[in-house]
């Protein structure tokens, strides 16, 4: 029965901001998928596995950085 405390529809910028937050929330899921993938084929510590894990890790860091930056950027006009 709790009434919505926020407006149901927001303007374009607010909408983008919310989708950014969604992306930030989804990051651990993406990370789990990326870092769980080697289990599908790797049985031993091969060169390919090592490279995959480190490249995937680096990609996660870059994506997280972009999202974090975008979030801070969209935060500024509000604050």
């Amino acid at each position, binding site marked *: 029965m709790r*009434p919505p405390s926020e407006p149901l529809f927001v303007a374009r910028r607010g909408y983008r901001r919310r989708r950014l937050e969604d992306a930030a929330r989804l990051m651990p899921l993406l990370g789990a998928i990326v870092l769980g993938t*080697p*289990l599908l084929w790797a*049985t031993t*510590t091969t060169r390919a596995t090592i490279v995959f894990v480190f490249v995937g*890790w680096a990609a996660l*860091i870059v994506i997280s950085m972009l999202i974090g930056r975008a979030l801070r950027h969209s935060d500024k006009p509000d604050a």
Partner: protein
Amino acid sequence: MLSFNILVAVCLGYVALLFLVAYLADRRARAGRLGWLRTPLIYTLSLSIYCTAWTFYGAVGYAARSGLEFVTIYLGPTLVMIGWWGLLRRMVRIGRAERITSIADLISSRYGKSTLLGVVVTVLAVVGTTPYIALQLQSVTLSFSVFLGDAGQTEAPQEIGLWVTVGLAIFTIVFGTRNLDVNERHHGVVTAIAFEAVVKLIALLAVGIFVVFILAGGVGPTLDMIAASPVQDRPVIPSRWITLIFLSAAAFICLPRMFQVMVVENPEEHHLSVAGWAFPLYLFLMSLFVIPIAVMGLSLDPGGNPDLFVLTVPLSQDRQGLAMLAFLGGFSSATSMVIVAAIALSIMVSNHVVTPIWLSARRGGASISGDVRDVIILSRRISIGAVLALGYLYYRLSGGSTALAAIGLVAFIGVAQVLPALLGGLYWRGATRTGAACGLVTGFAVWIWASFLPSFGEGALLASTVFSDGPFGIAMLRPTALFAIEGFDPLVHAVFWSLALNAMVFSIVSLITFPSPMERLQGVAYVNIFRHSEAARGWTGGAAEAEDLLIMAQRILGSAEAQSLFSVSAAEQGKSGYLPDVTPDFLERLERGLAGSVGSATAHAMISQITGGVSVSVEDLMRVADEAQQILEYSNQLETKSDELQRTARQLQLANEKLMDLSVQKDGFLSQISHELRTPMTSIRSFSEILMDSDNIAPEDRQRYASVIFDETQRLTRLLDDLLDLSVLENGQVTLDMVDIDLREVLDKAVATSQMPGASDLEIVRSRAEEQITLRSDPDRLGQVFINLITNARKYCEADNPCLTIKVNAASDGVTVDFIDNGAGIPARDETLIFEKFARLSHEHRAGSAGLGLAICREIMSRLGGAITYLPGQGGAAFRVSLPRIDAA
């Protein structure tokens, strides 16, 4: 070769540098020039205490033994950090809003400021951290011995552990307990740790770059070398991979030292957005060269201790400077971890164990300014010393065995037991204190049994028969095969069962128990932390939470009233629902509302406390609310009592009115009766006087007078008989003789009795067939009623040919007997009067009637369970006698 003395000198120099950094940072912070001390960079670097000496040296050893699996220890924290928006932001926000000082404080505060939970988490933390501190001391001692062995010296390295412990204790006490800040921020310590983070990163990177680019000759050759090394063959086991990522993520959240730097020391919430990628990057860099170093170490020194490859590889190439740097990296990893862990533990021990005990022992009113403050600082210092001494003791007792190396993951599993209670508390309002305590204790017990005790090896603390057959031969309880399920990897086994049982017990007990009001308030505050506090509003200004106000108002005003007050205010602001914006107008109105119940001063105090911003002392508010509730209840009781009194007074008034009526009736009756008695008495006296005084009265006169006297006496007797009869009937003293009667016989008898000789002739019309009814009644009394009615008709019917029709009508529910004459009847206005006593219609005054006949009839009929009524509209006087149909038994 580096001599022992040079090594000690370098260490002392490094420690002096640390002191200097910490001192300068503290001074800056004290002067209010926080500047770069509060940057995201420092925050990110301070998180690096996750990388202890265990990970600095141990990661390489881990990689040499298990290949890529070592990376899971870094991947877990990476997942937590890149998901900062979901969990860490919430923890930091709550930590700042509620002024949380440690993970034990967070758990205890979430579950209604429970002392018990604080103690449980503190014990868990101490048990989980002490071996870890021992591990750091061991690694420092080991790294010393590497140099000493290399230099051919044989100084007892155990001494070093002691000196390191003492040095760390001094540093921690000096910078960790300098001030008793409400926010528990230690700028000096954090800055020193950030500095150490840089040192260890540079050290590891330097060794790694040396290995890859100088020893191996580039990236390509390194990868080839890896492909050719035994590391290549190390298996990747899916269950361990997933479990370790999960475990390291859980430990990263729950470790007391991580909580300290991540939440308690956090200067700005938005630093998380930088740390969210920068700390994973740090971990990435820390682990980037681990496999190359391991591979190189294995190829250079296949028999060496892989845990020390970071030191032995540069040493074997005679790179003293690099080795020194690596040594400092390991040293700083160990020291930073020990420092922060000691601070975090000392805060927990002093806040959740020492202070409550001291306060309860004091019993007096301790003022928070002076004495408690000193006690807390003293207990902090003693706790730091005790924690470090415990760690050193553990290290000496375990003898630096290999079992110590395994304790890293075991400690992780131990602290991860806090996870269910923590996450439940942050996201689930239904989590209760009992549930959290039961879950924690369950997880703790399973951890001790399935992980901690077995970690010392079979036959060490647990007999080997316990491992093969279970305790007392109970196979279900074997430490490494709980519930007789075998084939688990021991680590996966311990993590799975401890956390699964922990979470299950926590959820089930939470579902079936009921939280105290305090828990429920805190639950709302934690779970809805973002609903209350939009970042733009800021924390220092503080914001009255409409929901908090509603909760408080409900306690005082009652739910319905409070909700209507809130929804009306919300509607006025143009909002739907129950939560209006907290405007001054609204607050004023609410205050007025509350003042009605608790008095204006209290209401004002309560509102200003909630709106004051500083963490609300909910407990105080609750106490006030409870008191108010008691007052309300008391006044409610008074109100009920006064209602009762009013009711009683009304009843008394009614009774009094009735008595007055009765008294009036009695007066009326007495005057009537005296009048009725007086009239015949007067004539009797007059005529008897005449008879006495006059001697010569004609005999016929004498005869006439005597007959008048006789008539009047008869009339008096009849009156008295009637009165007596009526009084018997009215008092209910009459005994009815209920028998089966034939209505016709009763009527026959009544008609015969009333046919007085010499009276005017009255024709009586009956239909004898219909009168053939058997009833259960008193024949004499019923006959009396009939006689009375027939006599009345005879007396009062003025028709020329008086005629009385008697009609009997039998229905299912009763019998009616109607007596209808053909006279003038009774005027409508008198119909209600005729059944009253002495209600003789005066103009019809005839001798021999006292006016009591119909009143007696009415009484008799009501005794018999029937009624007598006047039946209008029958062309004469008509009376209906109704009898209930009580069938013959």
